[in-house]
């Protein structure tokens, strides 16, 4: 992170259209800012595409685009998010992430100091995960045509050929776990974006889950399915897996871990924490026989300390069904919300 304190390596303080124009200024941006930030031998080759050595076996490949306002939020920034999000997508198929790409779409006038911070944050997060950012692209668009900066990252990882982690592997009797409490990312970003001040500021849970998944797999924990609980939160993830697998999940509402301050903010604004986005939380489907061992591994990892068993796969259901049993003992259907969630009126 020391780069942040150095003088800017470029003569401009803000991005201008010429930084994407293919000329000398663009070359400067790449050579003096972006390449040094992600410094690695593959990037230094300056080829049109990175040439990667990958062991034989299965490859996992994913892509995601990151647009977020504000770009810097409590607990992270768009750079950290763009790396963690893609690493997590790889990890959810049981892959060990190896390489990332980084494409930037930058709005004219964007502060180069902020860009530098974002790149440093990407590199730091990638390095901690043992992953290299090996290729990328930069475009500049006119002022007003983007919201600061958008980032796309793609990722490649390798999967042990014995691993089959997907919704079709989920079976009746499986236990459903979450690794952490829910709703911190979505609420932290919303409170920051809309300048809603609560007594307890919230931090996003933005984190790379690939290390934790790697440890679970290294300990031979049998995992049938993993899903990170991003947009739409726990509700969307469970409904999607249930539909895909043709199964009925029953969730015990009282067992779902939710941070007290997230719960308070949701109560005030009229949001359901089960539908709020997370960036460091996942659901795990584990056979009942493996639950104790799974908890042993989870509990010794910083991202698994508040893991909970929240429900079970109870039976087949042709269309997929998720029911939530509340504290009073009544079950209700867990449903997706329509469109966007809005704050309550009164």
């Amino acid at each position, binding site marked *: 992170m020391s780069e942040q304190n150095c003088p800017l390596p470029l003569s401009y303080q803000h991005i201008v259209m010429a930084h994407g124009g293919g000329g000398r200024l663009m070359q400067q941006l790449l050579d003096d800012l972006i390449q040094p930030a992600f410094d690695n031998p593959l990037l230094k080759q300056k080829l049109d595409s990175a040439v990667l050595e990958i062991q034989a076996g299965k490859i996992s490949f994913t892509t995601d685009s990151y647009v977020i306002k504000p770009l810097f939020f409590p607990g992270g920034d768009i750079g950290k998010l763009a790396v963690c999000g893609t690493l997590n997508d790889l990890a959810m198929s049981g892959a060990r992430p190896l390489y990332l790409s980084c494409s930037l779409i930058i709005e004219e006038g964007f502060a180069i100091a902020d860009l530098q911070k974002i790149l440093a944050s990407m590199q730091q997060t990638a390095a901690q995960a043992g992953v290299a950012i090996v290729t990328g692209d930069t475009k500049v668009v006119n002022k007003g045509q983007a919201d600061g900066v958008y980032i796309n990252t793609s990722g490649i990882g390798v999967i042990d050929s014995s691993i089959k982690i997907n919704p079709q592997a989920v079976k009746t009797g499986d236990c459903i776990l979450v690794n952490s409490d829910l709703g911190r990312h979505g609420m932290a970003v919303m409170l920051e974006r809309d300048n809603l001040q609560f007594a307890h500021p919230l931090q996003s849970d933005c984190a790379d889950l690939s290390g934790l998944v790697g440890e679970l797999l290294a300990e031979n924990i049998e995992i049938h399915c993993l899903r990170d609980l991003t947009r739409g939160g726990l509700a969307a993830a469970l409904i999607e897996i249930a539909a895909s697998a043709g199964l009925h999940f029953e969730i015990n509402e009282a067992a779902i871990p939710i941070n007290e301050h997230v719960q308070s903010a949701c109560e005030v604004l009229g949001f359901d924490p089960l539908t709020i986005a997370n960036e460091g939380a996942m659901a795990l489907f584990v056979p009942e026989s493996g639950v104790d061992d799974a908890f042993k591994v989870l509990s010794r990892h910083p991202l698994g300390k508040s893991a909970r068993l929240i429900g079970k796969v109870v039976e087949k259901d042709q269309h997929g069904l998720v029911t939530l049993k509340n504290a*009073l*003992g009544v079950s209700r259907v867990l*449903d997706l919300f*329509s469109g*966007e969630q809005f704050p309550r*009126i*009164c």
Partner: protein
Amino acid sequence: MKYQQEFRDPKLAHQWIEAIRETSKQPWKIMEVCGGQTHSLLKHGIDQLLAGSVELIHGPGCPVCVTPIATIDNALAIAQQDNVIFCSFGDMLRVPGSESDLLSLKAQGADIRIVYSPMDALSLAQEHPQREVVFFGVGFETTAPATALTVYQARQLNLANFSLLCAHFRVPPIIDALLDAGDCEIQGFLGAGHVCTVMGYQEYLPLAEQYRTPIVITGFEPVDLLQGIHRTVQQLETKQYSVENQYARVVKPDGNRQARELINTVFTPVDAEWRGLGKVADSGLTLVEEFRPWNAEYRFSVKPAAQRQSMVCRSGEVLKGLIKPPACGEFGVNCTPDHPLGATMVSSEGACAAYYHYRKLPHV
């Protein structure tokens, strides 16, 4: 979370359920007035737990649901004007007018913004002196003080580019109208806790007396609701008909004096149209003469097109408590939160949306 978890205690809740079952000798029909209460009852499954002892009828206390289509059409017409920044609470953006809704207009380029508080709209007016900023104020007496304060401040600040499109409603006149209707089956009411936090409950005394109907001012958590229902049932079983206050930790007999004064300074009661229910005397609030310059209806000469609303939608009967949402043939078939035919399917507090969200039979 203090004062909330205690009122969600399952053990306590089950004790109250038992008490209601013991007290109730017949399935009394009790209306919860407020949409927030409907939402909570269905979410926690309280209506199911009381089946046979009490039938809960879901009242018209959802501001999004009862705002008439003519007002939505006015909002759409104003929001489309070139120089306007149109502000409202998020849920209002989804409500279908005759031709469109605010979310669609926003997508087509109209400057429509979601605010958390009417004061945010006032700040926008100060930040954009060249633009007309209109706040679409909706809600019952709960949200009326914040709207009133905003208009009051607009006058203090001499902000000529701010105005209010007003769709505020009053609860006592609609209770009166429901009880007065020939087809009324409601035997008792849970009064809306938040409305009474502002207004107190003196206005309800004559209603309870005149119609011999218990009215129990009630909160929103499971134990609140169960206590409110228990007190209503107790009154019905002993043939007492008075106003009681279950939500005494928040509601005072005279409410919030300052908030009431603000409402009385800025607003005056007016006959108002309720979507699905028709016109009810003195059931709305409009700006008093002194604040007319901040009334968007006067500022913008808007002539909405002929109103069109679904002919098959039975939300009027739902709002009167005559039918439950699933009794409507369109429920979950042609009418869903993604494609609502009526406003009761739009708002998260609407009875149809609550049934769809919590009770939807899978795969309908």
